[in-house]
């Protein structure tokens, strides 16, 4: 899998990162995001490790030191790669694999369509926030509907049938068949 750099900037699907004026900084920030977050986490944990008494601190501090060193190497390499990266000439989506990006499950390239993944992530987080108040069914209906609409399901009847069927099936399987403790919600107390 790859992150793509498009000369055309944001394409019809809202792909990003874009190239062009002012995009270099964004690209550096994007490529460095994982090492930066890792280093920040290592820093916070190292500060917290000062409170750990005795031999309990040896292993975590050693692991944190390794993580910090590898994170620093990764950060330098990502910044250097982002700065030397060349944009790909293309049409409306200008998609081509960039070097150094991969995962073990798939080699297919993607352009990150933020216009789709952003609302999906927001829907997941909001479902998590409201679940405690409105209960499982409403939160899941919300998540399912928003995700389906964001990804291209358009007909209202289909959306209604699909979300209702998905929520009902999950509820029946987990709450009824497996008797799993599904939150009922404080507001509606389902």
């Amino acid at each position, binding site marked *: *899998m790859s992150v793509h750099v498009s*000369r055309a900037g944001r*394409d019809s699907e809202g792909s990003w990162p874009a*190239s*062009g*004026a002012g995009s270099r900084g964004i690209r550096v920030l994007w490529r460095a*995001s*994982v*090492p930066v*977050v890792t280093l920040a*986490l290592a820093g916070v*944990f190292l500060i917290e*490790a000062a409170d750990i008494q*005795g031999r*309990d601190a040896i*292993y*975590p501090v050693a692991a944190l030191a*390794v*993580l910090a060193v*590898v994170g620093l190497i990764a950060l330098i*390499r990502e910044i250097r790669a982002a700065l030397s990266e*060349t*944009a*790909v*000439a293309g049409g409306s*989506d200008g998609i081509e694999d960039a070097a*150094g*990006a*991969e*995962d*073990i*499950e*798939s*080699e*297919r390239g*993607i352009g*990150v*369509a933020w216009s*789709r*993944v952003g609302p*999906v*992530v927001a829907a*997941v987080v909001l479902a*998590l926030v409201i*679940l405690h108040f409105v209960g*499982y069914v409403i939160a899941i209906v919300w998540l*399912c509907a928003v*995700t*389906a609409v*964001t*990804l291209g399901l358009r007909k209202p009847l289909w959306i209604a049938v*699909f*979300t209702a069927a*998905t929520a009902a099936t*999950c509820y029946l399987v*987990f709450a009824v068949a*497996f008797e799993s*403790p*599904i*939150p009922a919600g404080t507001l509606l107390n389902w």
Partner: protein
Amino acid sequence: MFLDGLDIVLSPLGLLWLIVGLLLGFVVGVLPGLSTSNTAALLLPFSVSLPTEQALILIMSVYAGSAFAGSVPAILVNVPGEAGSAVTALDGYQMARQGKAGIAIGIARMASTLGGVISGVVVLLVIAPLGAFALNFGAREMFIVVLLGIVLVSTLVGKNIVKGVLAGGLGLVLATIGGSPLSGQERFTFGEIELYDGIQFVPALIGLFAIGEMLRLAAESRTSQPAAAHLDGGVRRDLKDAVAGARITLKHGGSVLRATGVGVFLGIIPGVGTGVSNFVSYAVAKRTARNPAEFGKGSARGVIASEACDNAVGAATLVPTLTLGVPGSATMAVVLAQFYIQGIQPGPKVLATHGPEAGAAVIAVVAASILILPIGMLITAPLVQITKVPVKILVPVVLVLGLTGSVAYRGSLFDMGIATMFGIIGFFMLVNGYPVVPLILGLILGPMLEEHLSRALALSNGDLDYFFASPTALVLWSGLVALVAYLVISGARGRRRERAARPSTDRGSKAPVQ
């Protein structure tokens, strides 16, 4: 171990979970975007409520089913359903274009069956002696073995070693959250009582494998459905093609054995996985063929090389998982988590303490591989329809299932938050080219690494010479040093090649940044 395992698999419940797992594996295998490890992670909330052996049968049959079913879209649509089937598409799709789609699927089905069965038998033969040898390992040797496993997986699963090691290190650090294994002292809980038991595997696995992968799928800007070749002619034609495919496969017995051998050998090495193994198997088959030019143009040997190896790897990955407690693949990381959740620590002692369960896991692969023949033939045509499930349906369903599974595990909204957080982390890692498997491995093996290190340090009174004071430890350290030296040298060579190739690339189609 063998007979007890056989008893478990052939019991009514064992057979039920075997068939359920196989059918689920078929569905997962044909759906591009949903992998075996995703599904195994999604199944964790269900499987923890099952007895260990039945949960293992379920996961192993999903593994076997998806290894074959991934070949169906690879042959018909030229889109591999799972990573291992990418190689099948090279010749399978060419056969489909020549009007031999049914025969290609028949070959894949028979090769998958033979690969799984032969590999399963080999694993049954070697696992007990290997387990007995590993029983001699003390805390010192186990520390080195676990470290070696983490280094192997971190460096082999991706193309970029630094990214793999970073992911593994992150997993090791996150594994230190919670009560210390030495004294119970709180570490990195930030006052959150739910973190005292550490990060739970189930929501973390669901987040990284299922939610992260679905976010990645949602982020793809190209989601058009590929045009499919199709199977027609009804049941009689399917049967005729299946028989023809089986005959062709049996005629190439040497190819099957060679591919299975490659699969078993590479499957035993943690982190290699089906993707790499299948390419190696294909390369070996091509190199040893009388007419290598036929490869890539619809060669039956090409399909056999990929499919027999794919299913052979599935059984072989159980060897390091069960004997050393180091998972051989992403799905085995979930199997390992399954053991821990059930209160069983995988490793050398597991064959002695939970031999029947371990035997059942291996025999489940063999039995599922055998069942691929009849069941796979019956449902190949309906499977083709499943390849048409669009992302707009698949992503919401898997997201809802994943989040529900994470909250249903302990009835804790905190776990759902953990799954969401790991999903977002997994997404960022995937789109930036960081493999998630080392993170999972670090999370699972971290406590084991710390425990063995602490025990070895206690035994040696803090003397580090103790870690080198046995022949086995020296051999293991040598392996670790050789691996690191190889990685450093090959990395330097790769960078030199990259630098040498760069000027010509720059003169190519890529335009400079504006």
